[in-house]
């Protein structure tokens, strides 16, 4: 231990030590009769330095200095290499950062590892929200939770203009349990929990800044929420995000919800499942223990309330430390992300291999210099170490550049994707760690491998012929061809995937959706929130439809359960057609006319049709289940007929726009579905003309605060994600293509320069230009061909794997493959032929004379 200490002390005081030693030796010489026998000072100083064992550090520093100087002298190479690495590392970091922020990172709240979000599960069923009285009951009777937090969000009308905003109704302990603080005023706490106290609200910092104009007097003022006077008591701190990145504009107290939504059965109903339930585990309670305890509690409570609690029910906790995801969810997401991560790492490997090839080219050019070093006594390990250290600045700058690029790209994507401004996108220590790890990987590929390759050569022979022989043999080297194949494979793969994504986007954007949305608008009055019963809902809708139908701007209108382009309905699949996802909707007969969906066969619904036994199916479903469209009168589903098919409609991907394997199933709107229904109307002219019409008609009942939206806006919003993903994939694909072509160009060009003499001889002996070109290009043809084949082959399964995840691509899309391949071949050919042309034009015979 003290040995180390001594050595470090020496290192720090090296200069002083050497000065003293020199003086000591001088004194010694002064005392000698024959000072000439003392020995040569410099040599003795070197040997003295050796004794302390810091030589390797000195050598490394020297190598680094040489390396940097070498890079400065070849700025084109240095800049290209750094840019390529920046791109490779930056891409990986961006993906990691976005995945971290969006999905993996625990929320910024107090002790996320003890906070759980509960899903209510029973055999075959799972919901992520529960009825309010259910949550209250569990909160009262349980023994494993120190606090229960509840949350419900929805739209409310803010202010006198009735501006619709998203509000979160939360339990009074919300902010104190999550560790939220107020920027101004105060937040919910003790004393605000009873129904009778006056309603209060807290606004979020972003809402206050952007929509309330940073009003300095907002705290304490009264605002109308759903026309009910509410006192604003505080503003959340800017950094407070809560449990979800999707933040509301304002918070209200859940217990006071009835004051803002009178007649809503929400707080008392056991049917309405709209409350998100979180719990803080008591000290020492594990999630599993909590789950089992709650399971027992529910079983006990079932005795008292057999109608409200199902058999074998339990509450499944998802912990905050894993962003409230349960096992299966997390596995799925991590799986999809790993796949994407693999692809981006591939880009990095491609980039690094490219730079490696460039470094190899430069190293072979220095084989003479290295040969001299070997001749002077340098060990091979020393040479390898030198070459590796020389690439260190490249990796370092690549890492720095990559981090900066990732930071900029994350912010850009956040802004484009509408991420709230207070979400922290700055790189944390994990990102830095990943960045360092990536640079090490890059360094390994770039530095160590070519260095080892060079060091193995007969460098002594290199001195004799000026390095030609060595360079030529390295040019043919298997390693270089392998790296080239890897580059080509990677970039081809990414290009094909990007082409697939673009094609999907194209298809989605083209008119062939099967229904017309540009002129349609949707009215959603949320009758369920205001305590309407079935009869009341039917009466309301009849009145509204009459009003809207009278207006000249209306071309057609119909009620439906699921508004088009919404995400509400989940799909089923039937055994008769297992790969097809069937999305069902309940509609009024005029739906097809409103959405301009053609009826291929049969009729639309009529007044007498029974919702339970009458269906209309889409063409795709008919083909998949029955093998033909001629299915009128047949039983549905095929193997267990419960309903009769009265019509076949054209395919209309009205719910999941980008999906490929979906089909539709329609039923007549049942009486009990009128409460949840929405009205879809098609305008004669522009859809915007319908908005005031719908709003005015909906205001028939003054309690309501209806939402009116245009279908084309919904459509645009749905597409943003795919657009961004496509854009990123395409730019990545093109950039990777450019890198690969740079690599091909570099290799061919370098090989050509080396063998200029050889070409001169060929030409002098009467060879044609064509054969010279063939000679130049020969070394890269095989690697490129193999790389392309592998890349294209890999694109298929990867495309299929991605389609099951968040990104939709059609894997068997020949146009995508063809397009990408053509682009690649053209680019690669140009990259390879350019140097060949240059060689010919520069007259190799001249070079023979000047050798």
């Amino acid at each position, binding site marked *: 231990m003290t*040995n180390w200490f001594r050595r470090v002390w020496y290192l720090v005081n090296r200069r002083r030590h050497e000065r003293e030693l020199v003086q000591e030796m001088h004194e010694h010489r002064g005392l*000698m009769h024959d000072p000439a026998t003392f020995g040569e000072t410099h040599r003795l100083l070197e040997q003295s330095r050796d004794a302390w064992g810091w030589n390797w550090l000195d050598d490394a520093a020297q190598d680094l200095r040489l390396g940097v100087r070498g890079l400065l002298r070849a700025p084109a190479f240095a800049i290209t290499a750094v840019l390529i690495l920046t791109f490779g590392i930056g891409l990986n970091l961006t993906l990691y950062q976005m995945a971290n922020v969006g999905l993996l990172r625990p929320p910024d709240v107090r002790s996320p590892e003890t906070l759980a979000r509960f899903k209510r599960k029973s055999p075959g069923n799972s919901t992520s929200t529960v009825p309010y009285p259910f949550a209250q009951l569990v909160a009262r009777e349980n023994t494993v939770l120190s606090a229960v937090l509840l949350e419900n969000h929805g739209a409310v009308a803010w202010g006198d203009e009735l501006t619709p905003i998203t509000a979160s109704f939360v339990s009074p302990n919300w902010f104190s349990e999550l560790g939220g603080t107020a920027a101004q005023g105060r937040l919910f706490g003790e004393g605000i929990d009873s129904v009778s106290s006056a309603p209060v609200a807290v606004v979020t910092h972003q809402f206050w800044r952007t929509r309330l104009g940073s009003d300095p007097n907002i705290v304490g003022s009264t605002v109308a929420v759903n026309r009910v006077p509410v006192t604003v008591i505080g503003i959340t701190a800017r950094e407070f995000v809560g449990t979800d990145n999707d933040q509301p504009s304002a918070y209200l107290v859940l217990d006071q919800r009835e004051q803002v939504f009178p007649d809503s059965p929400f707080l008392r109903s056991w049917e309405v499942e709209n409350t998100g339930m979180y719990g803080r585990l008591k000290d020492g309670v594990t999630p599993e223990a909590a789950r089992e305890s709650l399971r027992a509690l529910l079983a006990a409570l079932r005795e008292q309330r057999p109608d409200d609690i199902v058999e074998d029910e339990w509450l499944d906790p998802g912990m905050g430390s894993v962003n409230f995801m349960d096992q299966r969810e997390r596995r799925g997401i991590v799986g999809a992300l790993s796949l994407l991560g693999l692809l981006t790492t591939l880009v990095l490997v491609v980039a690094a291999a490219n730079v490696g090839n460039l470094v190899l080219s430069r190293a072979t050019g220095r084989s003479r210099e290295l040969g001299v070093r070997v001749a002077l006594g340098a060990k091979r390990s020393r040479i390898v170490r030198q070459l590796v250290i020389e690439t260190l600045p490249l990796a370092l700058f690549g890492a720095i550049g990559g981090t900066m690029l990732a930071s900029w790209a994350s912010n850009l994507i956040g802004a484009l994707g509408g991420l709230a401004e207070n979400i922290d996108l700055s790189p944390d220590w994990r990102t830095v760690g990943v960045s360092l790890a990536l640079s090490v990987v890059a360094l390994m590929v770039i530095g160590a491998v070519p260095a080892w390759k060079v060091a193995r050569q007969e460098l002594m022979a290199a001195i004799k012929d000026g390095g030609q022989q060595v360079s030529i043999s390295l040019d043919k080297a298997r390693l270089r061809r392998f790296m080239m194949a890897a580059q080509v494979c990677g970039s081809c793969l990414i290009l094909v995937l990007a082409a697939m994504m673009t094609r999907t986007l194209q298809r989605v954007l083209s008119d062939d959706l099967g229904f017309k949305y540009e002129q349609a608008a949707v009215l959603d009055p949320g009758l369920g929130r205001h305590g309407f019963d079935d009869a009341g809902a039917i009466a309301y809708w009849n009145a509204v439809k009459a009003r809207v139908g009278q207006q000249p701007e209306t071309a057609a209108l119909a009620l439906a359960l699921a508004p088009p382009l919404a995400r509400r309905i989940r799909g089923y699949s039937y055994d008769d057609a297992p790969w097809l996802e069937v999305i069902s909707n309940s509609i009024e007969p005029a739906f097809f006319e409103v959405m301009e969906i053609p009826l291929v066969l049969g009729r639309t619904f009529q007044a007498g049709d029974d919702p339970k036994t009458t269906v209309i199916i889409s063409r795709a479903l008919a083909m998949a289940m029955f093998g033909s469209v001629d299915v009128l009168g047949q039983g549905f589903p095929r193997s267990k007929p419960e309903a009769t098919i009265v019509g076949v409609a054209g395919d209309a991907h009205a719910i999941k726009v980008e999906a490929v394997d979906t089909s539709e199933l329609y039923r007549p709107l049942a009486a009990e579905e009128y409460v949840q229904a929405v009205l879809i109307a098609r305008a004669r002219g522009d859809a915007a003309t319908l908005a005031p019409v719908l709003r005015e008609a909906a205001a028939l009942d003054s309690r309501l605060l209806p939402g009116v939206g245009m279908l084309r806006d919904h459509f645009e919003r749905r597409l943003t994600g795919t657009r961004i993903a496509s854009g990123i994939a395409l730019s990545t694909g093109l950039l990777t293509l450019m890198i690969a072509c740079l690599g091909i160009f570099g290799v061919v060009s370098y090989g050509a320069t080396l063998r200029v003499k050889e070409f001169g001889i060929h030409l002098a002996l009467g060879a044609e230009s064509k054969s010279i070109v063939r000679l130049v290009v020969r070394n890269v043809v095989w690697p490129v061909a193999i790389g392309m084949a592998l890349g294209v082959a890999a694109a298929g399964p990867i495309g299929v794997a991605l389609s099951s995840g968040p990104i939709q691509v059609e894997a068997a899309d020949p146009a995508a493959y063809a397009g990408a391949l053509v682009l690649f071949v053209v680019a690669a050919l140009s990259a390879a032929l350019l140097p060949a042309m240059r060689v010919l034009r520069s007259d190799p015979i001249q070079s023979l004379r000047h050798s």
Partner: protein
Amino acid sequence: MPKVAGLPPGTLVMLILRVLRQEPMHGYAIAQKIRHLSSDQLSVEEGSLYPALQKLLANGWVKADWATSDTGRKVRSYRITPKGLKQLESEQDDYQRMADAITAILEST
């Protein structure tokens, strides 16, 4: 190890330690002592003492202090440490063993 004409490698360190076992002394004195004790049989290039002394310092076998000699010069005097004493013993044993082995071979019939 500094290569010295006539001296087996590694032994210079041992000799310096031995000399310093008696008393601390500075570089010139060490050279004198070695020459004196070996009756001029061992020719040590005097400068090569210094790399050896640095090695001794690096391993903690000697400690060096600056002092002023009687003639008013600044000299660095080296003193052996307990660790150094142990090292001397062990090196002496090794050397002895090697010498015995060689002698045994040379004197075998």
